[in-house]
């Protein structure tokens, strides 16, 4: 018998990976979330526990707040940087871009601890826990906002801008009417790449907020660790998953056509 190598067979390793590391763990989470800790029977008790507790709800709201603020600040800083980089006639602009992305290559725990030492040095560490947390988040996630914005802006057809000027638009109104709408895919993917992780990145809030800022990620960690309530932890994880899913639907989600704007085209 002959072995026929088919291109379809290439899917096997990926399929195995998917089953082992995505579908089975997800199955566990769903199982734990909908079962009762003591009896193991189906129950919604975990969800009720989460939504009935003011502490857990306020943690969720705080997380959303921190994530929103981080995303907004990132966008405000990243857009001008990406715009100037994309527009500049400098020949080696990818080098400039790399300078902004370079911090990503350094271990993130190291970076955050360095920031912590710096804040300690200037005496801010114990003064403004929430500010420090957001500062750390922005510092950490800024490249994820710059990259997709830069790739959409660099692809923007210059003749669009000329057409707008030709039709009587002042440069400012060209920006509002043409550049901004056409860079929307980059903005959307930048937001998805910053908003989601900031909701759960408790290492930053722990290190820079000195335990005063508890975000939902920390809460989950506690459920699986100190409180050893895997059922509640799984339920919260599922709630988060739903929030991400809904926000992706709202923002237009991952469309085939903007794959290129997600940083893929850069390197």
């Amino acid at each position, binding site marked *: 018998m002959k072995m026929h190598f088919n291109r379809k067979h290439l899917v096997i390793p990926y399929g195995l990976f998917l089953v082992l590391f995505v579908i089975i763990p997800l199955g566990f989470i769903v199982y734990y979330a909908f079962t009762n800790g003591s009896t193991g029977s189906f129950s919604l008790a975990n969800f009720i526990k989460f939504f009935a507790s003011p502490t857990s709800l306020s943690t969720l709201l705080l997380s959303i707040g921190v994530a929103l603020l981080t995303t907004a600040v990132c966008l405000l800083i990243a857009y001008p940087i990406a715009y100037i980089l994309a527009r500049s006639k400098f020949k080696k602009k990818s080098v400039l871009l790399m300078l902004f992305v370079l911090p990503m290559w350094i271990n993130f725990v190291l970076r955050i601890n360095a920031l912590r030492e710096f804040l300690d040095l200037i005496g801010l560490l114990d003064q403004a826990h929430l500010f420090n947390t957001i500062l750390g988040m922005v510092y950490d996630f800024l490249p994820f906002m710059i990259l997709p914005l830069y790739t959409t802006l660099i692809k923007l*057809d210059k*003749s*669009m801008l*000329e*057409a*707008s*000027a*030709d*039709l*009587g*638009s*002042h*440069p400012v*109104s060209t920006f509002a*009417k*043409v550049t901004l*709408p*056409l860079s*929307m895919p980059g903005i959307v993917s930048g937001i998805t790449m910053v908003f989601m992780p900031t909701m759960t990145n408790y290492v930053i809030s722990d290190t820079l907020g000195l335990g005063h800022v508890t975000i939902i990620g920390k809460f989950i960690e506690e459920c699986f660790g100190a409180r050893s309530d895997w059922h509640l932890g799984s339920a919260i994880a599922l709630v988060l998953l739903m929030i991400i899913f809904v926000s992706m639907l709202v923002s237009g989600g991952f469309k085939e056509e903007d794959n290129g704007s997600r940083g893929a085209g850069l390197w």
Partner: protein
Amino acid sequence: MSEKIIQLIDVYKEYDKNVAVENVTFYVKKGEFVTFLGPSGCGKTTTLRMIAGFEMPTGGQILLNGKDVTSIPPHKRPINTVFQRYALFPHLDVFDNVAFGLRNKKVKTTKTDKNGNKVEKLAKLSNQVIAQKVTDALKMVDLEGFEERNVTTLSGGQQQRVAIARAIVNEPEILLLDEPLGALDLKMRKDMQIELKELHKKLGMTFIYVTHDQEEALTMSDTVVVMKDGMIQQIGTPMDIYNEPKNVFVADFIGESNILSGIMVGKYKIKFLGHTFDCVDDFALNDHVDVVVRPEDIKMVDADDGMINGVVIDSIFKGMHYEMTVKVGKSELTIQSTKERKVGEMIGMNIQPDNIHIMAKEFTTNVYDGYITKNNTVVFGDGEFDADVTQLYPGSHLDEEGYLITKEGEQIDLTDVDVRVEVGLKDIDIDDITDELEETASAVGKIISIIYKGDHYQLIVRTEENEEDYVFDTEYLWNENDTVAISIPKDKIKLSLKAEVKK
């Protein structure tokens, strides 16, 4: 009709020291359909972009209705553009694309205020006015009912129409069209040519059109501006340009031509193809000139009945006519006729005096500024050539150390001496470039122009570094854009001193 709507005075543009447009001066009359015609890289699009305001001239002036607009940004000019690849806004539907310019527009309106006084105010156009204008514009380009369509779902031809509607809806004083039909297929292009022409008549707007398609230029325009290498070659009506080309380039670029070398043998007498023809152009006696004869202007008669005889060596049926190649002596002529003559047949040919277009030869010799190196070679035209430097001093010779010894026995060091170098059109050879030649060749350049002149080709090879040109005649056919090595026989390089050398 005689009002000058736009005027370019000595307009000059360079990018990174490369000249794109060189001292262009011309004007366009109100309501005219003017076409810039030329091969790619001739500066026609750059000129258009300077009129639109996207590019700032390096020097010179652009006047709009007599007012200097050279440094006014594009959004303040009453000029709209149809872009080469349309540049429609993909995030807007057809209606919003067309309405884009109108929404930026402010018009003067008089309003009565509380006290009953009339006040003049700048106001935006109302939505009804915009809607009406957009509908009218879409109707004009046959796109009624397309208002809500997404522009990305339209065909090329439809996008083209949206682009035109988007520009004309603003009622600009000048409409610029940058090769607007380039992306369409042949049939569609022909239809759009007629439609654009009609649109021009209907609107009475001034159209400035850019194309590299000579047929398009001749069919559509009132005036054609032929450009090459950033310079205007000829301005005239399509008829003028076709019938009275000013130089060999225009003759070769517009329509098909036979370009031959001739010599003036008397008043209104020119000799070429071994026969003396009557002509209507007057040049000095014994002048070497270029002669242009259109293929359809050569009339075939029976052998020995015409002014000249030739043998048909090729015949192709082209739908409307036959195109025959006829060998006369060493030259080949192209003839178009509705009657076919068989290959191998001997025929006679007549050419009427007013169909013989004579123009001064553009190039008679190559002239360069150069200098002599310490090895007694000469550097010019981006290359280093072996030359006979003793010709500078008749009767002189070189000693073993490379010094020049004159007839009188004086010793002269020629190192770094500036010389004027002349090379004849027949004295340059080229070879296909190889790795080895790249190292050893005197100079290397790219073929940028090939013009067939009856019995030979005239080539121009341009070097990359300083864009030095080598013009020469060759019997062999080369390909444009080929990179070649240039060689010149040592004894064909004529040198003369620019100044007396210190001894």
